[in-house]
């Protein structure tokens, strides 16, 4: 080992020690100080009741299956719709100008409206027009509301991906004799979609939490189940249980998105 390497190793060890000590100090301070707050006993009883946590957790987990199901059937529709809108906004053909207008209005409208309002409007409004069962189900129309909102976001993400592909790629494809359609299909989209995977992972994490908004129009998913327990037991612990379940899914998903983003950055640099 050279003297320089030894020095650097020493420096690294020192940095690690300091980082460890300061983290430990913060944790110790929190653990020691928070329980000394005068209202700690009341807060602990309201939010961290172990007995209630254990009693309600299985039901919360069961309710979470519904969140996962809604998520699973929404995602393919969101991406199909998002891609269609992104392509509509990117057309160059003058005859298809109305399609571009439609794409722009769609994005402006559904990205601008709060998801909650859209869930109410579509979830209660459209069935209110007189649809018979089972076509007035809140599951169907709640899903439609989520797809409308999220496809508008995804469309913009995809469009930015498409526009980030250098013009030379398109020109090269034309020189090779590819049609405009084939250029998009075989040259632009494969590169564009790969480039926006990290951004779309973030959309999925956000969607995972917004699925809970469907509970506003009836379905008993995890947050609603936690709310029911809260009002019966007059205790907020079930929400903590729900948060734990959400974290079990969103933390790995976010880490995976970070990993993809780093990989993408390394590949480009």
């Amino acid at each position, binding site marked *: 080992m050279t003297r320089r390497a030894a020095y650097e190793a020493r420096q690294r060890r020192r940095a690690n020690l300091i980082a460890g000590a300061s983290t430990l100090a913060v944790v110790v301070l929190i653990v020691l100080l928070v329980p000394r707050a005068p209202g700690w006993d009341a807060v602990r009883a309201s939010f961290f009741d172990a007995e209630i946590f254990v009693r309600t957790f299985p039901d919360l987990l069961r309710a979470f299956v519904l969140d996962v199901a809604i998520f699973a059937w929404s995602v393919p529709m969101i991406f199909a719709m998002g891609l269609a809108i992104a392509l509509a906004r990117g057309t160059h053909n003058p005859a298809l100008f109305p399609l571009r207008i439609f794409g722009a209005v769609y994005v402006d409208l559904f990205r601008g409206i709060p998801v909650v309002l859209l869930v109410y409007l579509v979830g209660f409004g459209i069935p209110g027009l007189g649809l018979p069962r089972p076509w007035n189900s809140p599951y169907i129309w709640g899903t439609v509301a989520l797809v409308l909102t999220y496809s508008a976001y995804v469309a913009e993400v995809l469009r930015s991906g498409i526009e980030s592909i250098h013009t030379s790629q398109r020109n090269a494809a034309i020189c090779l004799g590819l049609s405009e359609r084939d250029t998009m299909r075989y040259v632009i989209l494969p590169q564009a979609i790969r480039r926006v995977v990290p951004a779309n992972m973030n959309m999925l994490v956000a969607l995972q939490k917004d699925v809970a908004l469907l509970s506003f129009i009836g379905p*008993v998913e995890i947050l609603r189940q936690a709310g029911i327990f809260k009002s019966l037991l007059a205790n907020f612990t079930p929400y903590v249980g729900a948060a734990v379940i959400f974290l079990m899914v969103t933390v790995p998903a976010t880490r995976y998105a970070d990993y993809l983003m780093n990989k993408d950055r390394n590949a480009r640099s």
Partner: protein
Amino acid sequence: MKTVIATVAATLIAGSAMAAGHCAAGKTLTDGTLTFATGNPAYYPWVIDDAPESGQGFEAAVAYALAAEMGFAAEDVTWTRTSFDQAIQPGPKDFDLNLQQFSITAERDKVVDFSAPYYTAPQAVLTTQEVLAAGGAAPTMAALKEMKWGVVASTTALPVVMEQVQPSQSPLVYDDNANVIAAMQAGQIDAALFDLPTALFTAAVLMENGAVLGQFDPAAAENPDQFGMLMPEGSPLKACVDEALAAMTQSGALAMIEAEWLQEATGVPLIK
């Protein structure tokens, strides 16, 4: 006419207030005033026009009568608004008494204090004319089982539906009365469970096609739904409030207020 009755009632109560004495002295949030909380918005017939200060509506009238019984003049009563969650959160509360049709349950009683009940609410089934016209809806348990149910999450309606009705399809659950009504108008649910006064008002005023299918016999229920005033856990006011409520029950003042503000429910069939 109502004002006359209210005035007479208030005078009667004010007379007995002197006898009760100032058992609440120094125990309220602000000395000399009694702070009540109600919902935001507060619903008819519990509070008329979302204005509890007027003393109009069952809970508003009970609040002022109780205040008088405890030795507070009407101008010493102030109002604030809370949600259910604010009422049960662990921090300090900004009300002395909170009344917004809170059902007394043993679990809730562990976290907050409840006064003696000021009203026993029969549970009633709200539905629509369309459901009635389609047939199959009848005030019998067998018919209720086959209906699609909706309930409000923050009430005790869900356990009642699950345990007593045991419907064949799982109920849908909503944030508030307005959403339940919207779902019913959209044809997503057939029936909803409310306390009887709320059900009657909703059917008569808020919905064009509403109907009250029937009521559960409160005498037959194992745990009748009783409304209590919510207080912070360990509130020093509880003894004083309970004493005043007992006096109001004894003197018939509470029954008078109930008769004035809550409709006679003679036409609603009992569910068999």
